């Protein structure tokens, strides 16, 4: 597919939003669901973007920044694999396979930028001497822009080259057994994300709820909304009846029943 100059500019801008979203982690514009959809939209094939986004989102479900530990980068993976699928005319499964090394590359890039922004932090210290608040705002924006460029520049390069013969030949050189294998792996690779979420909870005593979810899903046709309601009900009941949260009431109840017993014995 040929892309117009306007589309190249739009890809650049959307990539900026996704790159900024990746560091901010606020609006979630770096998540595949949003990033792939937006790239699809500006490239004129939103439906494909949404489908790539849905598939990648399942893969990336557990990718999260906890403390100072950085997750694989969903922004670079989403943006570039969507461009490759739509502009480069690749299968969605190939796009997802390419996304994995891209996520690793994005992770390295974000390490680099987060180290560079240490310099911005030191530049901010100047305001301690003159009380200038506006400078702080600009330094903060500057660091954010650097994070936006981290995604926008690679995206621009890929957008300009994805349709070329060199890239096409490279992507088409992947043997079919590899693409089939990737498709198969795509069926169960999401468990990595699930495992990351489960580990993050660090709540061994709550694991029965995990098994309950598994068995109920295995033997019913409940959709996610029904399961969500069921999970919430379980959570509420657990909190209501767990002795840990009802210490004071329990004492009262115990005391009352003791009296009752005494009366009857009398």
């Amino acid at each position: 597919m040929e892309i117009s100059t306007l589309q190249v500019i739009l890809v650049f801008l959307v990539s900026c939003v996704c790159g900024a979203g990746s560091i901010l982690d606020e609006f979630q514009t770096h998540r595949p669901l949003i990033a792939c959809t937006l790239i699809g939209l500006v490239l004129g094939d939103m439906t494909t973007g949404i489908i790539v986004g849905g598939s990648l989102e399942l893969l990336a479900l557990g990718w999260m920044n906890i403390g100072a530990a950085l997750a694989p980068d969903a922004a670079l993976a989403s943006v570039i694999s969507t461009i490759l699928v739509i502009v480069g005319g690749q299968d969605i499964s190939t796009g997802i396979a390419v996304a994995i090394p891209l996520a690793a590359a994005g992770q390295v890039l974000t390490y680099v930028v987060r180290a560079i922004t240490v310099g911005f932090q030191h530049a901010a210290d100047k305001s301690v001497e003159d009380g200038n608040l506006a400078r702080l705002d600009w330094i903060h924006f500057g660091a954010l822009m650097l994070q936006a460029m981290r995604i926008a520049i690679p995206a621009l390069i890929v957008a300009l080259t994805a349709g070329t013969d060199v890239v096409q030949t490279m992507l088409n050189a992947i043997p079919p057994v590899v693409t089939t294998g990737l498709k198969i792996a795509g069926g169960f690779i999401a468990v990595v994300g699930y495992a990351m979420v489960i580990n993050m909870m660090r709540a061994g005593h709550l694991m029965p709820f995990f098994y309950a979810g598994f068995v109920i899903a295995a033997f019913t046709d409940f959709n996610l909304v029904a399961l969500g309601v069921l999970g919430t009900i379980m959570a509420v009941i657990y909190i209501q009846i767990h002795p840990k949260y009802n210490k004071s009431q329990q004492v009262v109840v115990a005391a009352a029943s003791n009296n009752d017993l005494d009366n009857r014995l009398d």
Partner: protein
Amino acid sequence: MTTEIKKVTKSDLNSVVLRSNLFQGSWNFERMQALGFMYSISPVIKRLYPDPNSQERKDAIKRHLEFFNTQPFVAAPVLGVTIAMEEERANGKPIDDAAINGIKVGLMGPLAGVGDPIYWGTARPVFAALGAGLALSGSILGPLLFFVLFNLVRLATRYYGVTYGYKKGLDVVQDMSGGLLQKLTEGASILGLFIMGALVQKWTSINVPLVVSTIQKQDGTTEITTVQSILDSLMPGLLPLLFTFACMWLLRNRVNALWIIVGFFVIGIFGAWTGILA
């Protein structure tokens, strides 16, 4: 000299909420969210210490450029409490730098412990799973639902966090030990784990087409039993469950998630090559 009472206005608080949407913009390995915290609280510093050359303002900037890092959304109540303390200090109460920074540092650990499981462990994966399910069929509702739901929860946290923290001031510390946060964290974890269990079963697909037996029935039909059909009669989704346990074990042993994903790709390719998987 007139002693005017310095007061943070409603619009200052709103401005802090708005700015805190860019909380992590300058996240760096040295002081992490320090500049983001300062950037967010900037309108309050401007209000309380209007003179740029005053030592009070310079001290305040110095205070808030100190190390800070927590889950970004639960930084909202910390911002609120800090605003309340800054206001009292600006009006002459004996609150020193150590007190303000002590509260900030003291709150960030416990709040991250609450924020991580609630937002990253439950809210985002649950909404994302819901959205991804719709998105796989190409429906725009998928991304929209995820975006709207998650941001509603996030913005509510940001808004109520700042206003509640400001109103309560130091009482927040007492509220936190009341067990409400623990209930919320545990409740969210239950929902999160329950949904993860369902997803392991529902949103994975694996097929081992190896034929175990082919039986010629009397009515002429043949019944082919594959490894997968035996597994399914035991418990549908058994293999993904085992894979999940393997992942959890590997992750706990500090294996990078990307390597595990690469490993799964290798299993997939090997399976396709040998015909064990389809």
